[in-house]
């Protein structure tokens, strides 16, 4: 009797374990992963686990990792979080025993969440490879993050259409020029065969970051600049009138009725530019990949978002919100292996070529390879011509919640169900409240 009971227990135990080991190897839902050289960990060499943020570059990272493993024997796992799921994926991955050794944060606010996990990088080789100290993410004198890609955004112009309407990019040098051109194009839209001057200012979740985050960077940038600061607990909103002017221009000279913007997506806006239905489209250098399929390089140009403050000197908005961090909690060997891998990526021929050409990144490291991206070239030309790039200050926005508040207020304002005062209050009062809440 006893024996049979024991057998029964053993059997059920076996059933349970076999049912659960199945889950052990997975990398979790919403992620795609590949282990190269699995189980081939040589003694003392450590291993690298990179949780990648950019789904567009997943395959390039996978092959770069494989090639690194082939050359050095160090296993490198690259897992890419599904779009928009990075923070949730990172949170669950970090709780595992095999946590990512290399991950990324989006700036000072992201760092606040993960500081306890970040390895101090000031003594690392890769820190010495940075072209400027501005690309390191610091807290006091400690270095916690290294920017690995620099991006620019502005207003992307379909030059062919602009010239058809009788304007040139060179003739648009400040906000008034832009407004005149856009108003005129809008009034002649039927004659020109387009739907509007600006592609739809979509306020759907896939697109609203272009305005609640990227466009909102400009009033913050100019306020910081005027006050000589680089972050604040209380924003004054000195340049919100200019913010309103640009936003008004976007929604008035647009391809659709402002009331419909709440449901317009990022794809809608991109499609309008690609189909020649709009002349202007606010977005960044990361769009080059999808636009270059439909346009020749000389048909597109990115111009600064002229803001009516210092248009003469204003360049494109250039900066980064992608900072590599190394997991402090990982074993010593793994940390070393990760630092070596990062260094290899940005110094070796293969690494820099893959990042610069295959992934299309501009990397802020001394041995960077030139990128093919025209928008990036235009940014370099503008900087060379003496324009000042607008830095990315939206990484200092107090929280995602603040951005959502501004986004909702902008959407309601565009549709006429809300007032501009609500935007101002979401911007200024919301900033104060959110900073206080985050600081606790």
């Amino acid at each position, binding site marked *: 009797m006893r024996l049979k009971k024991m057998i029964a227990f053993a059997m059920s135990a076996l059933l349970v374990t076999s049912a659960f080991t199945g889950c052990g190897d997975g990398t979790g839902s919403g992620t795609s992963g590949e282990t190269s050289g699995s189980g081939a960990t040589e003694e003392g060499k450590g291993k690298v686990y990179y949780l990648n943020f950019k789904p567009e570059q997943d395959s390039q990272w996978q092959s770069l990792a494989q090639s690194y493993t082939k050359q050095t024997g160090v296993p490198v796992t690259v897992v890419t979080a599904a779009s928009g799921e990075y923070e949730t994926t990172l949170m669950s991955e970090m709780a595992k025993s095999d946590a990512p050794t290399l991950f990324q944060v989006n700036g000072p606010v992201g760092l606040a969440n*993960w500081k306890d996990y970040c390895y101090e990088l000031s003594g690392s080789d890769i820190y010495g490879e940075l072209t400027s100290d501005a690309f390191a993410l610091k807290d006091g004198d400690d270095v916690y993050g290294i920017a690995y890609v620099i991006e620019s955004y502005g207003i992307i112009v379909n030059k062919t259409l602009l010239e058809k309407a009788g304007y040139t990019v060179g003739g648009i040098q400040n906000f008034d020029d832009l407004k005149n051109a856009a108003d005129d194009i809008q009034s002649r839209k039927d004659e020109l065969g387009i739907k509007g001057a600006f592609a739809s200012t979509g306020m759907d979740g896939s697109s609203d970051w272009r305005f609640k985050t990227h466009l909102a960077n400009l009033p913050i940038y100019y306020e910081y600049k005027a006050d000589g600061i680089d972050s604040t607990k209380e924003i004054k909103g000195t340049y919100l009138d200019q913010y309103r002017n640009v936003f008004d221009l976007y929604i008035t000279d647009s391809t659709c009725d402002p009331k419909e913007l709440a449901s317009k997506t990022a794809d809608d806006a991109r499609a309008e530019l690609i189909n020649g239905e709009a002349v202007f489209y606010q977005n960044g250098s990361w769009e080059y990949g999808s636009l270059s399929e439909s346009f020749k390089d000389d048909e597109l140009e990115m111009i600064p978002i002229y803001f009516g403050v210092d248009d003469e000197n204003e360049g494109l908005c250039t900066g980064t919100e992608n900072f590599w961090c190394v997991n402090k909690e990982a074993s010593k060997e793994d940390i070393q292996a990760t630092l070596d891998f990062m260094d290899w990526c940005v110094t070796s021929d293969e690494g820099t070529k893959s990042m610069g050409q295959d992934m299309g990144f501009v990397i802020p490291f001394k041995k960077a390879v030139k990128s093919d991206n025209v928008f990036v070239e235009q940014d370099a030309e503008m900087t060379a011509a003496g324009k000042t790039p607008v830095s990315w200050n939206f990484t200092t926005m107090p929280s995602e919640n603040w951005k959502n508040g501004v986004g909702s207020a902008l959407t309601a304002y565009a549709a006429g169900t809300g007032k501009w005062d609500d935007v101002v209050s979401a911007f200024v009062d919301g900033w104060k409240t959110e900073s206080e809440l985050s600081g606790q």
Partner: protein
Amino acid sequence: MIGKVTKKYWPVFILPTLAAFLIGFVWPFLWGIYLSFSRFTTVNNVKFTGYENYKKIFIDNTFSHSFKYTVLFAVVSSVLINVLAFLIALALTKGLAGTNIFRTVFFMPNLIGGIVLGYIWQTLLNGILMIAGQPLLQLSEKNGFWGMVILLCWQQIGYMMIIYIAGLNNVSPDYLEAAQIDGANALQTLFRVKLPMIMPSITICTFLTLTNGFKMFDQNVSLTGGEPAKNSQLLALNIFDTFYARSGPQWKGIGQAKAVVFFFAVVAISLIQLNFTRSKEVQE
């Protein structure tokens, strides 16, 4: 013989499921309650902080708003779904032509996932609102509310209808015949005979619709995303939002505390509802 075998080998049948239940439900649940008293970024680095998180639940007044909104939503959608599902079930047990086709058609929406439905209905409803010159779903708390009610009704009526049909088919023809002989008209038969006899189905259906209304998340995310300004956020989305849209480790604990409060609220309300409808059930 069978009884003996079951007695001997019960662990084989019970243990795998029990273990899965313990590992997949009970343990995370207890751990979740503990987390609601802590400050954490990941679950293996947790600092106990006592009641701190619970004190901060109402810090940004979104929780109380979504609580009221959710209660209203759960009640309105439950009533509508049950009444409509029951009416359709009545119609489809009359033995009319095409009954089977209609049963299938009404049940179909239930097979589509909430996120997909949300996006499809968003396009549809926004199209109608645009023509009507009304603010879109994302711009008006009221439109968003009714949008979600319509969506949930469309999705769940078929399922509840099946349960009601089963209940109605189980009403013994003897009772109906007796009622007929006693001279009861159709309405009297419905309210005095059929309804009391299908109380168990009503209990199940109100329980399901009420809890589904409280727990709704996917459809909320895809249909309105909580817009405008979090005004159409149901509780589940509010908790998710607290967890992920805020920066700083303290918010994870607050979100967790909200989730625990949410759990007890749903349990309390479902128990009250179960007790109430059970008391109306009759024994044959």
